[in-house]
């Protein structure tokens, strides 16, 4: 009997054959950066998750938990990947108290299904993340991927109020609770956000929910140069307008976005002027507030000499907002070879953005910028092929991006890169000063290092 067959037999003994998959074709669907697991396990309860983890500890196997597998490429390739833990069978809502605006939901619940349930009570969870139609709630949280609503609702750390999870000793643990304000014990659940499954297997998450706004609006301002963009964004920040989202697109990013818009909808009512910078703002609130924000944005855009300066109709706004939410997804495939950076830096400074575009130019690569709210910039480098010269150009460009981010007291990481580039560049950037602190956390959660080894910052 081969080692894989032996493993399968023993897992069958724990969960039954119906929760185990070993077919080669299906195993390949769970591959991460080309690393294929030996078996897929689909537990249906937190207790079953704990049993699998305890089995893995005893047998010295590694585990990577996943939901819809839409963002498995985040991070570095795993150094070892024995068991894929498919969490989609844990998909119930354990508790929803609309009167208290609190929710407790299983890890594998798809976000869009959750939205339907919450929407029936006029509520929602502000996790507007890419691959929205398929993403699970725990997958979205563990990936740490940005929500386009973060400007107004914050990140998951602002509305995650508790969690249940299986730690690296196979114990079912919890942190936080189901109340909106709570400082009882260490906030261990916050560590799970963006941890790529390296600390524990999330089985349930507790959230504060929010009331659906009465109305939405969207506005598009176009500028012929970066200085106009900067003046407009500065004016918006000083105005204190409570925008849900504010995104700036470089001309190349406009061209990419326009292509996606055209693919998915025949008409987009605003002129797709690809030679300009776009600033897209979305906003929401009461029927009285939305027109006020629209008026103010038009005035500020006019003062910054925007043209066009347009309030979007509802359909165009929803469409553009949806396309931008999915930017992570389509930017990865915008050319035969793409490197997508996420840069945390000071607000939209023209010099910083020009420096980034300069990196693309010097590397003879196409570069495009999407400046998101809250100091996040997505920067994509596109090559027409995956040959050695393109890889070398991307590698050099990556080093420049990491160093530019550090010079601005920021950080950069690669959200997507070709596998060959990942073998040359650590997607997390240079070694961090707080790596030792992170290693202490990892060791305390997962002393046997069985969860997703090698994927995270500093090789964690």
């Amino acid at each position, binding site marked *: 009997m081969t080692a894989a067959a032996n493993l399968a037999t023993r897992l069958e003994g724990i969960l039954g054959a119906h929760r185990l998959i070993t077919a080669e074709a299906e195993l390949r669907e769970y591959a991460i950066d080309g690393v294929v697991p030996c078996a897929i396990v689909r537990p249906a309860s937190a207790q079953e998750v704990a049993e699998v983890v305890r089995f893995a500890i005893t047998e010295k196997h590694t585990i990577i938990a996943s939901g819809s597998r839409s963002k498995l490429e985040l991070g570095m390739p795993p150094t070892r990947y024995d068991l894929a833990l498919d969490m989609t069978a844990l998909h119930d809502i354990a508790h929803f108290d609309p009167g208290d605006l609190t929710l407790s939901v299983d890890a594998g619940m798809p976000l869009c299904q959750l939205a339907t349930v919450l929407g029936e009570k006029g509520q929602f969870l502000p996790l507007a993340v890419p691959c929205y139609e398929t993403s699970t709630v725990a997958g979205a949280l563990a990936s740490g991927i940005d929500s386009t609503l973060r400007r107004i609702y914050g990140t998951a750390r602002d509305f995650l109020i508790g969690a249940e999870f299986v730690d690296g000793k196979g114990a079912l643990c919890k942190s936080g*609770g189901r109340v909106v304000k709570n400082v009882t014990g260490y906030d261990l659940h916050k560590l799970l956000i963006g941890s790529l499954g390296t600390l524990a297997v999330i089985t349930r998450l507790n959230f504060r929910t929010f009331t659906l706004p009465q109305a939405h609006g969207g506005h598009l301002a176009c500028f012929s140069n970066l200085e106009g963009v900067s003046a407009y964004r500065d004016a918006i920040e000083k105005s204190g307008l409570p925008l849900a989202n504010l995104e700036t697109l470089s001309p190349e990013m406009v061209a990419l976005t326009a292509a996606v818009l055209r693919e998915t909808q025949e008409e987009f009512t605003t002129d797709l002027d690809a030679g300009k910078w776009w600033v897209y703002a979305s906003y929401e609130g009461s029927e009285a507030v939305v027109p006020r924000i629209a008026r103010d944005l038009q005035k500020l855009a006019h003062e910054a000499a925007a043209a066009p300066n347009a309030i979007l109709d509802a359909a165009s706004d929803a469409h553009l907002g949806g396309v931008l939410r999915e930017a992570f997804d389509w930017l990865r495939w915008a050319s035969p070879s793409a490197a997508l950076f996420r840069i945390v830096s000071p607000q939209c400074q023209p010099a910083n953005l020009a420096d980034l575009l300069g990196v693309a130019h010097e590397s003879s690569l196409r570069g495009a910028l999407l400046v998101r709210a809250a100091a996040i910039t997505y920067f994509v480098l596109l090559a027409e092929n995956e040959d050695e010269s393109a890889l070398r150009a991307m590698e050099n460009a990556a080093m420049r991006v990491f160093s530019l981010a550090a010079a601005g007291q920021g950080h950069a990481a690669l959200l997507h890169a070709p596998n060959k580039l990942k073998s040359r560049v650590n997607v997390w950037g240079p070694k961090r000063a707080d790596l030792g602190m*992170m290693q202490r956390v990892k060791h305390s959660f997962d002393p046997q290092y069985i969860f997703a080894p090698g994927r995270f910052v500093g090789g964690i």
Partner: protein
Amino acid sequence: MPASLLRELNSLLGTSNVLHNIEDLVLYEYDGSVEKARPDLVVFPHTTEDVSRIVKLAAKCDVPIVGRGSGTGLSGGALARGGGIMIVFARMNRILEIDLENARAVVQPGVVNLDITRAVEHAGLYFAPDPSSQKSCTIGGNVAENAGGPHTLAYGVTVNHVTALELVLPDGEIVRLGSKHGDAPGYDLCGLFVGSEGTLALVTEITVKLSRKAEAVKTLLAIFDAVDDASRTVAEITARGITPAACEMVDGWTLCAIEDYIQAGFPRDSAAILLIEVEGLREAVEAQATAVEDVCRTHHAREVRIAKDDRERDLLWKGRKNAFGALGRLAPSNYVLDGVIPRSKLPQALQQISQIGKKYGFSIGNIFHAGDGNLHPIVLYDPRDPQQFENAIAASREIIRYCVELGGALTGEHGVGMEKNELMPLLFSDADFDLMRRVHDAFNPDSSLNPGKIFPLSKGCGEIRVRKQAGALPAQV
């Protein structure tokens, strides 16, 4: 305590930055809680390097350390339960950097909470967490306890406004976490350390987010003849999805005490008031104020006043924030509890608190953050009467147990400290404690920092360095 340690600390910091006489030390055996524990030495560092050297000296002599801001905490978090050295951050009180463009401030831990707002309000910015003690509590203490305040209902608690920290670990190593602009890749270490009650490291520098002041604000005072009506109003405001910036409740008994002390304009003949603030764009504020008023009247508010100017608004908030001081005039001591419940359970929780008070012979006041279910029952008692003290403790434990039964938590903003560590098993299992202990030991393996806090000693989670203190709470759940 080795005599050489005092000599070395005097040499390191100068004698004006070291206290060792008993008459000085007794001033540091209290905080805002009902607990007492005296340090053996008190030191006042001026720099991060001072803190690191103090910690190294303490480690060499195997002496425990506790950090302290201004000692306003309400759970015994800043008391030296294990004796040893108390590091008071009062002289590390400089604002190091203000970056208006990126809305950030970098401050030392001894900066008083309100001083951050004072330093940036000229630019229309402020620091959102606003504990009642914000005129005296320090940002370092806020970080340790993850402090809240009335306006955290809309804007979040301290952790939501911290992007980076500088820390000194128990071996004296200086480390930096997070990043100025927030959201750096990696584990959310700031999220772990904020609220860890000084049990993992000493915080020596904090980078905070600054918020922009709202365009418009309205403060409503809703007056009720029945507590039940006021609490049902809060539950319905929440259920309707109205999110005020603040929603505070004060009962009639407490209102009279406040009026005797402050004359804030509260009614003396009501059962309860709600102090509700809405802010944002003018149009939003108008709509929210109308909606709030509608809910109040639906639940039989006898009057809903709107503060007509900043002076009247400030006076109402002055009354609210000085309530604990007002009650302090009525009895030798008071015990401010801190529990959390689901907001939909507010009416039954207040009824139960009243019954528990009657059972133990106390009139229990209620002044609290109703909008986020964060209760602050206040028990007035005389600590010189041992039976009263025991009853106050028993009543408080019963109230907190009831909060947990309703699906709530032990503490919303005061922390566990040495007040509630024995109640922790009401919420957490052995597996939960095992993981929390491993995280604790990853940073503070010898329990040299703030021993005897958070973890229940009765569960074998305590440390041998905790010594028995006179007046300590009994260790029964």
